[in-house]
């Protein structure tokens, strides 16, 4: 769905994106992670033909960007940084106007009303009525921005920080909406620095750091067991003595043991008369994975 080859963008002396080979496949829920200033927004804007690459190639839905962007953009729904709308108009009027600005002519006009209603329904703004957008809350604006991305019933969603401004319920609604759309065949590509959001939603992740794509893999692969067992026991000393040589790390009652099978280890400890309060395979969180491969980002000046 999205392929880039050696994609690079320089603004003067600053290199925002360095030789990125992105690979988003049909049906993915792809999360692009990275600290602030790592190049996520520049990358997203290049995919949509807003920013021109310095070098490298972009292919979206099988078409070259930016030369043939006009052919694929109608099939893409996009949210780029903050949502935007004309503040004196209602949400519905904004969506209708935006849709009318795009291609499609008479055919698009015939279905416009229905598509706008449907999009407002999908994002939970159906009952908002004629209120002008300037009276909207931050979360409502974000929902309206999502609705704007959905009015053309896109095959591909490109969402830059879609969770911004949403409260916990809004985040859950967003997750359910995107999962539902994805099951209906829409490929979702989103960028975020909210790791928990991506961890719960995405099937594949890429990590940008200082303009480079330092990691790109399936989330399940990244989070595969590490070959270590985490166990907690009130009899930590005895356990450590019993498993001498296999304990990699000890922190009070918590032990990290090199071993593949938690059930066997548990049976062995219980057989030896030692108490175990919790046991399970060690899984790295997305946070640990991302922090391990990224630098400090641009916020922190050191």
């Amino acid at each position, binding site marked *: 769905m999205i392929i880039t080859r050696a994609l690079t963008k320089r603004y003067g002396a600053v290199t925002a994106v360095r030789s990125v080979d992105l690979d988003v496949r049909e049906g993915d829920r792809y999360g692009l992670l990275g600290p602030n200033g790592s190049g996520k927004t520049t990358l997203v804007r290049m995919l949509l033909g*807003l920013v021109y690459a310095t070098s490298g190639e972009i292919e979206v839905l099988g078409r070259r960007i930016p030369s043939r962007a006009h052919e694929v953009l109608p099939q893409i729904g996009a949210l*780029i940084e903050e949502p935007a709308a*004309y503040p*004196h108009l209602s949400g519905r009027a904004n969506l209708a*106007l935006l849709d009318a600005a795009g291609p499609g002519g008479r055919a698009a006009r015939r279905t416009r009303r229905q598509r706008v209603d449907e999009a407002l329904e999908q994002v939970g703004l159906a009952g908002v009525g004629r209120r002008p957008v300037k009276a909207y809350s931050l979360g409502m604006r974000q929902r309206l921005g999502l609705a704007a991305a959905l009015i053309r019933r896109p095959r591909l969603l490109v969402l830059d920080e879609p969770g911004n401004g949403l409260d916990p319920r809004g985040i859950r609604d967003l997750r359910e909406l995107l999962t539902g759309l994805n099951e209906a065949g829409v490929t979702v590509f989103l960028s975020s620095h909210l790791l928990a959001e991506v961890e719960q939603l995405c099937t594949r992740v890429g990590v940008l750091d200082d303009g480079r794509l330092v990691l790109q893999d399936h989330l399940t692969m990244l989070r595969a067991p590490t070959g270590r067992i985490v166990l907690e026991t009130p009899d930590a000393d005895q356990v450590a003595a019993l498993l001498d040589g296999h304990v990699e790390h000890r922190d009070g009652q918590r032990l990290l043991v090199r071993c593949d099978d938690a059930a066997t280890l548990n049976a062995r400890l219980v057989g030896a008369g030692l108490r175990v309060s919790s046991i399970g395979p060690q899984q790295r969180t997305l946070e640990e994975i991302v922090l391990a491969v990224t630098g400090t980002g641009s916020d922190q000046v050191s």
Partner: protein
Amino acid sequence: MIKVELVKLLRRPRTWISVVLTCALPFVVAVFITVTHLVPPPGQGSAFLSAVLQDGALYPAAALALVLPVFLPVAVAVVAGDSIAGEATGGTLRYLLVRPVGRTRLLVAKLISVIVYVLVVVLAVTFTAYATGVFLLGPSQAAAVGQAPGGGVAGAGGGAVGGGLAGQAPTAGLAAGGAVTSLSGAPLSLLQLTERIAGAIAFITVSMLGVAAIALFLSTITDSALGSALGALAALVASEVLVTLNAATVIQPYLPTRYWLAWIDFFRQPVFWRDIQRGFGIQAAYVVVFLAAAWANFSTKDITA
């Protein structure tokens, strides 16, 4: 896309506020003239004002002369300067472009919506001024229009006083020295007057296109709507200064405001076409040059706002 731009223009409160304010100035002037019966002597002050006491139906021309030097260019510079920069600041530009709307199409649609805006303002001023003139200053007696040296224009009812007034008019007019063909006193029928006002409206609208194109170009360079509007106004002020400067005679034919007042020539008998044609020509040149520059800049620009 053009339709969308027009909807945006017409549904925006700012559009109507600026129209009402622009119409209010001539109205206030008319009220004062009605109350005091004081008008500037022919050839001084704003064009046509000296004539309106004799003929209220001439007030649209006087009103246009009142709003043309400042109000209209300011309004046009604000609307055109906001066109791209305002969308960029509001964030809506990127959403329009990924809809997708072609960048060239967007520029042309913006320019057309500015033209429509100018027409709306000029027509609103004309109609409210006609109503004001007829109701406050009295209806048309056999209208006659005279013209004075230096571009100041006087008109008088029945032609009896008109000739004398125009002949005496001093040269402190508005335009920078047009040719003198004093034709005072020649009567204009209502049809002729209407035709000539229509011609003047068309010419004034076109005169604003140069400013509009400059503001639109600046609007593609900066994301600040204020900056591009003020930039365009600065260009106009510079042009106005140079137009009155004898030392700058060489470049004067190419200044955007040089022929702005040529619409007054529609009210000469017969119509004096030379400056009107040159005015159309110079505005066309400014539109072509600055629209091309705007296109060259905008179509290759990274949209980071």
